[in-house]
Each structure stands twice: as C-alpha cells, then as structure tokens.
C-alpha cells in the first residue's frame, strides 16, 4: 500500500513533538558570531538629521553601529516592479517613512549588550507630516513619501475586457458598493532569523535565514549586495515556525545582516522579536474597492466595474504589487461575466510596507465581489443563493476562459453548492435563524463562492506594465518546479525539492508520491528539504507560496520518480529477460507483471547501476539520480490586450454560515460554518484538511479580530499580542468541511492548490451573514464590538448646552467588557458606517429589537 491519496500521518511529527525540530535559531553558529539589534524610528515621517554612536561604541562588547549612510555606500536600492524612484535600502536613508522603520543596527557580543548599546545611540529626527489614510494620500496636498515620484499614487492602470459599456447600457439597473479591506498580518509564531557570513577573499556571502521564497527575490538580494547570484549562498533551515507569506519579507534583513558581517568581519546573527515583528515585519495591503455591477431584474450580472486602490505602505517591496495582480485573471471570481473593466491603483502611505500574505489578493477581491452579490439580492428583493447560482459558471463551460484571461481548468460549481446545502442542512440553518430572530436576537445567513488559484504564473506581475513596456522588457511567464530523486548503492531512495518547509507536510506527501511510482513504502523514502542555493537546483519560482506545491513540486516529484522507474524497469527487464512494459513495481520488488515469481528486490536492481555500470542496457547513463522539471505550458505571458492566466489550477470553495449577534456585548457568534472544497485530487486528505482548518482560523481572524490600527500621526496602536488579537481556540468556531474532487486536467496528479481558500472566502461569508442579520450595507472588517455598536446604536445624542464638558468620543479606544476575549479594539477615525436606509426582511425586525 503506497499511500498516495491516503490520509497518512506525517513523518515530520516525531521530531517536532519531542523538541528535536531544527529551526533557524536552534542551529549552531560559528565561533565569534556577533549579535545584532535594530534601532527603529519612533516617527512615521521624519528627516534623520544626525546619528551619534560614540557613547554606544564605547560600551564594552559593542563591535559596530551601522547606519543608513553605511548601507547606501555598500549596497544598491532593492529592485522594484515599477519604474518609479521609490528607493529602499535595508536601513532608512535620509528619512524615516514609517514607525518602526530600521534606522540603525547595533552589533555586539550578545543581543543583551546590543540592546543596552542601542539606548546610548543618539538620533536627531526632524518630524514631518505623515499620511496614513490611502484616500488622503492620493490628495494633491498630501505629504509625499517619495518626492521624486511627485505623487503617492505611483501607478494607475486601466483594463477593459469584453464590452462593459454596452453591458451597463443593457442592464435593468446597477448595484454599487464600496468595500474597505483592513491591514492585518498572519504573524507566524517564529519571527525572522538571519545568520550571515562574509568571505572577503572571494567577496561572497553565506547566509542562513528562514526565508520562504519565491526565489525570484534572490536576484533582488544579490543585486542589492552588488554580487552575482552565485556569490550569495542562501540556505534555508530544515524547520520554520510558520510563514503564511510573511517570511518573504525577511529579505531586507538578509541584506542588512550580510552588510553587518562585511563591516565587522565576523559572522552576525539577528533574531527578530515579537514587538518589532508587529511593528515592522510585514502585513497584507489594505484595499479600498469601488465595485459596480450591471444586472438584469433577475439578478444576472452582465458586466462589472472595479476600481481597486491598494495601500502598500512606505515602499513597494519586491514582488509587490503582487496582491493587486495575482487575482487579475480571475477578477470575475466564480461567475460567468464576460464584461469587466478594472482600474488598479497603487498608493504609498507612512505605514509598514505591505507584502506577501496567505490569500494574496483573494480576500480583498472576494470581500468586494461576494458582498456585492449579496447587495444585488437585497436591492432586487431576490434570494442571495439564487443570485449566486444564477451567475455561477455552468459545468459544461469548463475549461472556462475568463474575460480577463484566466483558464479555469475544471469545476462543477453547481454540484458543489447543491451538496453543501444538502449536507449543510441549509433548511435547518434557516429554522435556527428564524427562531433566533423570534427571540429578538439578530441572526443572519451568509454565503461566499470563491475560485482559489493554485501555483502562480510568474508572469502575472508584468501585467502591471503596459503591453509595449512588456515587449521592450521581454515576455515573462511560467512556473518551474524541480525535484531530484536519488538512489544510493544499497537501494535507499532520497528526495530533494524546491519548496521551503513551513509546516505543510511536504516531506510526507513527496514520500507518498515517490513511493507510489517505485512500489515502495513512504517510510522508505528520505526527503531532505533544506534548500541551499549553492547546491540545489532552483528557479525563480522555488519556495512555498501561492499553493504551488500540489500543482507544481508534487508533479515534478512524479516526473522525476517516473523517469527513475523507467530506468530501473529497463535495467530489470535486461536482467529478468523480459520486456520493460511487462515490469511492475510492488512491495519492494521489481518483477514481471504476468509472472510475479520472476522478480528481483528493488535494492538489487538499484545496486546494478552503482556496482556494475557495464551491465546496464546499451547507451544508458550510469548513476541513479533523476531531476524532474515541470513547467506547464498553460502559464503564458500576458497577451497584448492584457489578458493573463494568473495560475495553473483553480479550485472552488462554497461557504455557508449562520451568525448570531449578542445584543448586549455586540459580539458575533458563528453558529454554524460549512465549507465545501473542490481542490481536485487530494494527495493526503489529513494534511489537506489541516490546511483548510488553518486558513479558516485566519479567515475568522480577518473577519472578527485582527487589524493593524494606526492613529492619525502613524503610531501603531496594536503593538503587542494583547492589542493585536490573534484568535485563541475560544474564538474559532467549529468548521464542517465537505469535499468534492474534480481532477485538474492540466497535471498528471490532478491536484489543485488548497491552502489559501478560506482566507479568501471566510471574511466575505461572515461579513455577508452579519449584513443579513442587520440589513446593513457597509460592513467593515474586523467586525469588532465597537464597530457593531457604532452600526447599531448610531450616534449618541449631542451634549445639552451648559452640561459638563463632552466625554471622549465613544469610538476612542474605550475598553469594552463582555465576551471571552473581545476587548474593544481601538477604532481608527474612519467615518462611522451609516446603517442602510432600506432594511430588508428579518434585518428590520432585528434592528428594531
């Protein structure tokens, strides 16, 4: 039993369960390694006038204090995707642009001494006006982050697919909505760690870091350090404490620590602590979307218009603006909409630079689309589920080419929805809603239909450029996956692959795939995933992100193991005197299919290639090492009219939930949550469900709890885990997972990406449930008690004349009791959402309760 497709328990677990994990900070360091501490800007926007480190350097044990001037001399600014003078080095140069930006690096014999010395470094700042709100940042008089750009809105691109004008002209009416997706980060529990060594004799760097990829960022680091790629050896530790996209953004610190190693002439190690992680590591971009649909009376969507303003913070880091373009081909979501116009805007503000985060553009897009579909139902007086089903892509249209160019490989959306409703007991859910409403409790049912892309087309980002700019720069496309299968002289199989470990069980699944091909037991397959750019084959697509494992690296493993199988079959056929086609691999043996007694052990056959190359069939290359490379042809470059197939596979998720609001504490309780997934063939259902549970918890976090909150001058108000509410077990509702497996026709394993889906669907589904409960139009995330109170209770009456001075506004961070952890999260001074004047159905009754 080879176990491919089986819910095998993970071979990674025994080491991790007994404290034998090998995370970056666990690994030994060379003698004489120094330790670094980053000094960070307390201002959101300020000129750096002077840095005086004399007192710090006098402290025993301090080796160096490195500043922006040093970094500007020794390195180049990081490459970015846009031709705009937005220059970022690994330390602030001349000006700090967000609270927490790295301004100086103290290097000393220990982290303790480095932190002591940091307090002795005198830095003079000249604070400048900061801009935090993305819309204000677009204003003419807004303070400029990068004056040379002459604006903070550094990119506006318009796209038109189909004939949207005609669609809007033909429509019975239009339905519009503005949606604001907040800033948050899926803070991995292990922070950044970098250990860098510089070798002066050949001007090369050797760095260990819990970087996660994509390795398209390796050239960005090498160019910043002014060395060819081969002179920046980057090694990834065997274990990493979660990443969720966040650990792409360790790359500026890899360059900074490398510079420190060069300046001090000794190895330098930096371990990020939680306070600086929350302040300055990375976050997803916040996005304001104006979305409008041209609809018929029956709720059929003829055309869509989206205007997406995405706030990337103080700099545009590589590979931004990924989230704004990753979903571009799939901008019409799960719906059969032939006409769509899109305007993509990038704005910079005095906030932490945004970067990769699980969901990567999906959560922002689907909050807009799925809230709009609910609004279409409300404003046309239709059932929300009917409007969804009326627009879903019909099964017979697959493979379906979207208006913007995505090729949805396979799907059966209607059956998935039908199953979710039946097994999910939608009728029972409606009974619970009606009972709750009868008891005066606001209760709503929400839905969300989401298409989840898997394995990004590395060319999607070039859609950002105009067609002729792309032509000049040369086309970009594709996604390469690489896996090597080796067999040693005793017949033991080992595998290396181009993924970085973050907890997804890749070793287990790779061993299942290779064992399946070679007729062995997964336990016999040794998988080593410590990436080393100096020794492992890698491409710009290497790393673990955008669900590239199942549609990518897994297939490369299948390709490599199949080539190895064919080679062994040829060797065995010669020795067993039969034809290769008659060979079968099973139970650790290589034997004749028709005469199983005519067999040899796997080890024996493998040994032949090592011990007696002369016995090999004519022309066969000796040695048993096969590298499988998989580069699917469907990932084409953007077309001249900007159509782009942004990913290889497209899964489908249909979520349904019931949510009840406590009228006393204004907290949202998810009463039931059902999530139907069609991610093609599941390679390991146990691990696949684990990814769904994890993405769901992060979706709930975005919907109800997590948000980076800045005050108007850019200070971060959610700077510890007591203010930035990562949900505990008490805040995560029970999840009912349903599966449907429509294989992908584009990969031999038929498996699609599965790990980002609920990050995309859950915020929209919960928001829809709350909107249904309240009959409200504008639901901003996270739906904290303060926001619900503002929505329900509306403005307080003005203070009568002659009374005592007005108490602080109810919105200013007033602590709220109630709920296990629902401490009132400070609410930024965004406009108070106004309740919808046209209440619908149960919502009306609830709001008057």
């Amino acid at each position, binding site marked *: 039993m080879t176990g491919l497709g089986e819910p095998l*328990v*993970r071979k*990674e*677990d*025994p080491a*991790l*369960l*007994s*404290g*034998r*994990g090998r*995370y970056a*900070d*666990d690994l030994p360091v060379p003698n004489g390694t120094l330790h670094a501490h980053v000094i960070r800007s307390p201002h959101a926007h300020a000129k750096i006038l002077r840095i005086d480190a004399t007192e710090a350097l006098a402290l025993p044990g301090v080796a160096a204090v490195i500043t922006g001037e040093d970094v500007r001399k020794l390195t180049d600014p990081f490459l970015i995707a846009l031709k705009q003078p937005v220059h970022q080095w690994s330390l602030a140069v001349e000006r700090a642009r967000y609270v927490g930006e790295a301004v100086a690096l103290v290097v000393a014999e220990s982290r*303790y001494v480095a932190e002591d010395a940091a307090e002795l470094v005198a830095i003079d700042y000249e604070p400048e006006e900061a801009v935090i709100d993305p819309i204000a940042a677009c204003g003419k008089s807004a303070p400029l982050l990068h004056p040379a750009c002459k604006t903070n809105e550094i990119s506006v691109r318009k796209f038109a697919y189909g004939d949207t004008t005609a669609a809007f002209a033909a429509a019975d009416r239009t339905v519009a909505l503005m949606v604001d997706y907040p800033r948050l980060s*899926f*803070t*991995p*529990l*292990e*922070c950044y760690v970098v250990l860098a060594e510089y070798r002066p004799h050949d001007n090369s760097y050797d760095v260990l870091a819990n970087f996660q990829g994509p390795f398209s960022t390796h050239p960005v680091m090498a160019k910043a350090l002014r060395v060819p790629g081969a002179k920046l050896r980057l090694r990834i530790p065997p*274990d*990493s*404490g*979660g990443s*969720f996209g966040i650990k792409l953004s360790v790359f500026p610190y890899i360059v900074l620590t490398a510079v420190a190693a060069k300046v001090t002439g000794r190895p330098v190690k930096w371990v990020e*602590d*939680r*306070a600086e992680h929350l302040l300055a590591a990375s976050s997803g971009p916040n996005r304001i979307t104006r979305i409008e649909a041209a609809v018929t009376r029956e709720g059929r969507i003829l055309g869509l218009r989206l205007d997406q303003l995405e706030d990337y913070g103080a700099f545009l880091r590589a590979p931004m603006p990924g989230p704004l373009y990753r979903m571009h081909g799939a901008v019409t979501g799960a719906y059969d909409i032939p006409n769509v116009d899109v305007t993509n805007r990038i704005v910079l503000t005095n906030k932490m630079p945004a970067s990769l985060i699980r969901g990567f553009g999906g959560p922002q897009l689907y909050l807009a689309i799925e809230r709009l579909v609910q609004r279409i139902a409300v404003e046309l007086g239709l059932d929300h589920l009917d409007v969804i089903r009326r627009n879903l892509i019909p099964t017979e249209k697959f493979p379906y080419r979207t208006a913007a160019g995505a090729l949805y490989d396979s799907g059966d959306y209607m059956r998935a929805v039908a199953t979710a409703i039946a097994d999910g007991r939608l009728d029972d859910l409606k009974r619970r809603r009606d009972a709750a409403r009868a008891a005066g409790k606001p209760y709503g049912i929400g839905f969300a239909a989401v298409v989840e892309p898997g394995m990004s087309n590395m060319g999607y980002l070039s859609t950002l450029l105009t067609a002729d700019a792309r032509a000049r720069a040369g086309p970009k496309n594709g996604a390469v996956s690489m896996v090597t299968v080796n067999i040693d002289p005793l017949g033991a199989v080992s595998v290396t692959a181009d993924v970085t470990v*973050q*907890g*997804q*069980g890749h070793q287990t699944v790779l061993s299942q795939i290779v064992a399946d091909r070679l007729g062995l037991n997964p336990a016999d397959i040794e998988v080593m995933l410590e990436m080393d750019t100096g020794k492992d084959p890698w491409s710009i697509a290497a790393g673990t992100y955008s669900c590239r494992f199942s549609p990518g690296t897994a297939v490369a493993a299948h390709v490599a193991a199949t080539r190895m199988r064919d080679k062994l079959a040829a060797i065995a056929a010669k020795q067993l005197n039969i034809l290769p086609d008659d060979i079968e691999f099973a139970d650790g043996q290589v034997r004749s299919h028709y005469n199983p007694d005519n067999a040899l052990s796997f080890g024996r056959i493998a040994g032949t290639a090592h011990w007696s190359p002369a016995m090999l069939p004519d022309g066969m290359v000796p040695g048993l090492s096969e590298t499988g490379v998989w580069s699917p042809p469907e990932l084409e470059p953007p077309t001249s009219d900007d159509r782009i197939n942004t990913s290889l596979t497209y899964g489908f998720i249909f979520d349904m939930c019931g949510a009840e609001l406590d009228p006393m504490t204004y907290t949202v309780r998810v009463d039931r949550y059902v999530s139907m997934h069609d991610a093609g063939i599941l390679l390991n259902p*146990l*691990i696949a*469900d*684990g990814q769904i*549970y*994890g*993405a*769901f*918890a*992060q979706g709930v976090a975005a919907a109800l709890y997590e948000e980076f909150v800045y005050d108007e001058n850019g200070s971060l108000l959610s700077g*510890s*885990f*007591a203010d930035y509410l*990562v949900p*505990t*077990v*008490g805040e*995560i509702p*029970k*999840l009912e997972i349903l599966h449907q497996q429509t294989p992908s026709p584009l990969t031999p394993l038929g498996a699609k990406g599965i790990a980002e889906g609920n990050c995309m669907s859950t915020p929209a589904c919960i928001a829809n449930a709350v909107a249904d409960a309240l009959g409200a139009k504008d639901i901003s995330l996270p739906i904290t008690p303060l926001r619900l109170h503002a929505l329900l209770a509306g403005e307080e009456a003005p203070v009568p004349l002659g009374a005592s001075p007005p108490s602080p506004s109810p919105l200013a961070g007033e602590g709220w009791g109630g709920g*296990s*952890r629902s401490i009132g999260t400070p609410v930024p001074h965004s406009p108070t959402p106004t309740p919808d004047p046209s209440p619908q159905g149960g919502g009306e009754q609830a709001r008057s309760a």
Partner: protein
Amino acid sequence: MRRVSKDERSRIGFTLNGRAVSGEAEPRMLLTDFLRHVIGATGTHVGCEHGVCGCCTVLIDGVAVRACLTLAVQAEGRAVTTVEALAAPDGTLNALQQAFQKYHALQCGFCTPGILMSFTDYLARNPHPTEDEIREVLSGHLCRCTGYAGIVAAVLAVSCGSPN
C-alpha cells in the same frame, strides 16, 4: 541570600528532565535564553516574550510556567521539565504525543512544545477533562497553523474526555 551585581555572571544549577545541568548567566538572562543557548535544549521555543503565545511553556516543579517571564536565576535548584522529556529515550512518543500525530494536531510545530507541556501538567491533575476544560487550557496558547481543531481532538482522545 547571595548578592550578585548586574553584570556579573554566576553559575546557576537545576535538574533538567531529571539530569543535573548548570551554566553561567547574568541575573537578567531569561530562562528561555538560558535553556536554549547556554544549556542547548532548543525544544523550548520563543514566540512573543510577553507571556501571551505560550510557546515557551515549561514545567518548574511540575507546574506549567512561561519560561520567557522567568529569569534563569529563579530556576536555581528546581526541577525543570521541557518537551525533550516526554518521549522515551529510544524516541517512542508518549500517548499525548502520539495523539497529536494521529489527529494532525501540529503543522509547523513551533507552538507544539508549549502546548504539550501545559497539558502534561494539566492532565496530571485532571486526567479526564471535559472538552470545555480542554479548550480553557488551550486558550492560553496561540497556534497559527492548525485552527486548534486537531489539538482539541487529540487531547480529548488521549484523556478519553467527553466531547461537547
């Protein structure tokens, strides 16, 4: 009472997982740093250093504590137990660890040691907890990968507790 100046490194000794260990530390050194970088027991992890995430949970005299909120000097002469003590010398996982593997109660494994130590303490005092009691203990820990579902199932299974 021994008086030690702020920068002076003194020798600290305690039993770690049944064996005597000792090393030098300044008074301000955290127990997490002492365990991980002086003794080399890297099974205990550091996730927040302000007592919220629970990754650093160890037992001192059998009671679960946050090692990041404990100074190394405070462990002098005590019995410290960390995740490295749970499996048998030959690597065989104990019942709690096996249940975590069976129910896929871990993914990246960074929060796992702390959770195992909290339940090692708690199950010793309340061997058959209800699901609500298990969730109460688990609410002292953050996990970013699993969504907690597998962890609750694993602890319920190993303690034959009663699900809600």
